[in-house]
């Protein structure tokens, strides 16, 4: 019960942070809000027993993502133009989509239900066989690197490709300064 209470408080804080990020127009503040959001998400992951994921989220979401977004804001400017008209159509689209998704959750298994279908299929096999087949106590590592090695190879290829893409778009060498700056309209 305690875990559920902590969980509910953390999720409420997440919702507040996300709403604050929507309302702010200074991109620096939005980025810091996103950093806080990631840190709260990492705490939620610890509460939900996903320590490996929490570790990654704390390092990536709070550290690397924030630094990257700040670097981008340094290059493109920190102030967002305020929208000229009230965003009624986006609100309507979001409300309809959200209502449809809430309707979809009514058929979902309850939170933390041990009988949920997701826990029945391959996972008991991994949990039961991992010690004798791989000799590794951390099941997340044994699934990541051994049982689902193909997946991880594919993910690594995606990261590699994204890195190559950034290199192709921005490059590592220093640019020669163009003779005149682009005019800002």
């Amino acid at each position, binding site marked *: 019960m305690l875990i559920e209470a902590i969980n509910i408080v953390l999720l409420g804080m997440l919702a507040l942070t996300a709403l604050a990020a929507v309302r702010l127009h200074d991109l620096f503040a939005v980025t810091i809000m996103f950093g806080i959001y990631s840190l709260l998400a990492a705490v939620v992951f610890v509460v939900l027993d996903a320590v490996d994921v929490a570790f990654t989220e704390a390092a990536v979401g709070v550290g690397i993502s924030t630094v990257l977004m700040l670097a981008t804001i340094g290059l493109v400017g920190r102030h967002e133009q305020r929208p000229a008209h009230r965003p009624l159509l986006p609100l309507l689209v979001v409300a309809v989509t959200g209502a449809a998704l809430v309707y979809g959750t009514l058929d979902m298994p309850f939170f933390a239900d041990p009988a949920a279908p997701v826990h029945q299929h391959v996972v008991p096999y991994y949990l039961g066989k991992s010690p004798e087949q791989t000799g590794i106590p951390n099941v997340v590592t044994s699934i990541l690197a051994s049982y689902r090695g193909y997946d991880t190879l594919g993910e690594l290829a995606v990261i*590699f490709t994204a890195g190559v893409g950034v290199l192709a778009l*921005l490059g*590592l060498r*220093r640019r020669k300064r163009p003779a005149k700056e682009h005019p800002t309209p």
Partner: protein
Amino acid sequence: MRDNPVLRIVAKIIIPVILLFALYVQFHGDFGPGGGFQAGVIFAAGFILYGLVFGTEALRNAIPPGLLRFVIALGLVLYAGVGATTMLLGSDYLAYGALADDLIGGQHLGIFLVELGVGITVSAVTVTIFLAFAGRNDP
């Protein structure tokens, strides 16, 4: 930021600790939380801190861009190479059992090498991305 003595000294003390912690996370991932993805990001965070405090020019001198390009591919090649090796040894692709005489030993070696490949590529890509963004407007 480069003129702030507190930042410079704290960074110099803390960067080796970050790198050492990344190596701990990398090689202890079998027994506790951790693994190649986390370790790669933390290792890169050490370099990024160096770049933030001492300037991207200093970071570019510490790791030349040519080396980074090579290391990005090295991790993926190491991962795929483990798969190719197990095939050459007469087993399936990425079936680590073929790497040693017994199943557990082969699994340990295979997972170690694969996680190392993940860590190498992730850290190199992260440092590259940081350098590409932060070094964009260098004088």
